[in-house]
């Protein structure tokens, strides 16, 4: 308490405090002016990125189909091997017994078929009300494929794409050509290509022919699902190389 009193009573204290305050403010302004108007080399601070020391990638050799060098055709003179002729064995059986077994089997099959075709007794249910047909009230099924159908379609086109791609072998010199060809392909219900025609040429005859050849070599494609059979056989699909 005594010390505090003495400090407050010091006559130079106020003056010294004022000088100190002015000095500090002056220094603050000097540094502010220097920082704003006389800034040194800008220090670029980018967003912090966590960098672990990672390894550079190893060398991976790409796969290139090297055609086998053509050698002169040689005709092998091999002695043909004679195939032993198999003599047909004469069956020995009891004709009467076989006929009897045949008749029994047929009767059994008839009975089974009869059971299957007979309709099971059903409770009487009134038929659902049929909408009255008049012009304009028929809703088109539309072209959008959704739900299970879409999954089915996607699965089929993925399989077809994989098959077609497997046969699309491009010469190295056409690899980066950026060419594009569209081919209309029609397939039957077993997946066999029944028709193919260029709908958009790449402008390069060799490329177009390679694409058409690849499609023929890929035939048969996977058999289309029931929903697609008619579409792919009558309208066909556009196979786009590469997109």
């Amino acid at each position, binding site marked *: 308490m005594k010390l505090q009193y003495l400090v407050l009573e010091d006559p130079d204290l106020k003056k010294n405090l004022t000088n100190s305050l002015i000095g500090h403010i002056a220094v603050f302004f000097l540094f502010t002016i220097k920082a704003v108007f006389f800034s040194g080399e800008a220090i670029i601070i980018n967003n912090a990125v966590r960098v672990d020391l990672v390894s550079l990638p190893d060398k991976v050799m790409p796969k290139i189909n090297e055609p086998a060098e053509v050698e002169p055709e040689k005709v092998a003179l091999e002695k043909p091997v004679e195939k032993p002729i198999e003599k047909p064995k004469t069956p020995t059986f009891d004709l009467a017994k076989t006929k009897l077994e045949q008749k029994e089997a047929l009767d059994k099959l008839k009975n089974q078929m009869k059971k299957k075709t007979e309709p099971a007794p059903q409770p009487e249910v009134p038929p659902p009300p049929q909408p009255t047909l008049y012009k304009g009230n028929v809703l088109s099924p539309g072209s959008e494929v959704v739900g299970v159908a879409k999954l089915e379609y996607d699965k089929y086109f993925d399989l077809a794409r994989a098959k077609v791609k497997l046969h699309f072998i491009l010469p190295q010199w056409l690899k980066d050509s950026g060419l594009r060809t569209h081919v209309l392909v029609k397939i039957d219900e077993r997946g066999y290509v029944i028709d193919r025609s260029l709908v958009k040429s790449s402008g390069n005859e060799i490329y177009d022919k390679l694409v058409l050849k690849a499609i023929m070599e890929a035939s048969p494609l996977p058999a289309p699902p029931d929903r697609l059979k008619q579409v792919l056989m009558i309208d066909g699909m*556009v196979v786009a190389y590469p997109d």
Partner: protein
Amino acid sequence: MKMLFLITQLIFTVSTFAQSAADNKPILQVGQATLVKKSLLAMPQFQFFGNPGVSTKYVETGKTLFDVLKNDLEISGYFTFIDSKAYLEDPNKTGLKPVTVEPNGFNFENWKQISADFLIRAGYNIKANSIDLEVYLYHVPSSKLLLGKKYQGETKNARYMAHRFANDILLSLTGKKGFFVSKLAVTSDRGGKDFKELYVMDWDAFEGSIKQITNNKSVTISPSWSTDGKKVAYSAMLYKPKLKMRNVDLLLHDLASGSSTVISDDPGTNSGVNFHPDGKSLLFTNTRKTGHPDIFRYYFDNKKLIKITAGPLGAMNVEPYASPDGRRILFSSDRSGGHPMIYVMDINGGNVNRLTFAGRYNSTPAWSPDGKLIVFAGQENDHFDIFLMNADGTNMIRLTSSPKRGSSKLANNEDPSFSPDGRNIVFRSNRTGSYQIFLVNLDGSVERRLTFDNFNYEKPVWSPFLD
């Protein structure tokens, strides 16, 4: 007039319906081909049209034409050559054109039977010191002529003629010119172990094409071609009589006149030069202005020097390489505080982005001619290898990895430079002992040695197209 209008309307309507019908069909997008193959090429020896008794060097000239063309086409990576033993007809007894065109012509069926994709037929004649070369490229499966040309030139330019034909073949097939008429600038100790001088040679480093450019009796480093291929800038340690010491100066050499002029001789380092695509300026590293290596741009017209890199303080910013569009600069820097890595920035030095984070020391970055790829040398353990990545730093692949001859260690593969068509990369490697020049394609599947001597080569740089 009314009829014409109706016909036009009809055509428009039909085409619109046809288009909409096609639009409604399912589309199967096959995607990019993942399987590629080389094409089978039949190239019989070139026929000599002249009188063997009159022309003395016809065998040698014919061999040169054939060998150069074959080497060029092999380097392209597009072809596999069919062994001549497989030919079903004697090319010396048939003409250069098919039998449907000339009576004694060749038969396409004979080439189809051996599965040839392409057939090259060529013949030449020598008159005094002049060669007339006639060449044809056929697509065998379609029995069509793809390219037919006649070249004329001095016999001493036989190699050049063959290179031109190779270029034309690639142009006709791919629509893009080949690099076969281009050169390499490189520094080497060919003149003696104590010095490294600047040399220029054909892209295939043919011994007869190697020409010494400088004779500074000094160490010459980091050459760079001008955009027109007429000048080469380089750095050399030149003696300064006033300072009584050597300094790394930046010089510009005019290939036509053979004279060199000093661009920058600031005390310190003036090196790592690269021509800006505008042809009016160049980028290089200078140490005097800031006390540490920074990148500057020098303008030829007003001789102004503009500082490009700015900090961080004390960081090394070197090896600038301007992008093909001239808007960005690749460079290497240790500004991350650790090992040198590859960075890219705007041409004025702003918008700096780090591109590589892997490895211990990444250097000598270079753009591909289309600006989509970047090649650089990266060190991981005790050796450098060549790496390729997209312009944004993604999809990095290693192109080289080779043991050093007579050692259990791996060799250094450094100083990559793109060919002007962007299909190959030239670099130097010590895999055979001394540093020799090698070539690698963009997927690393084909590597080829270009120089076959015991000298050391440094910083091979590919010229722009010279034809």
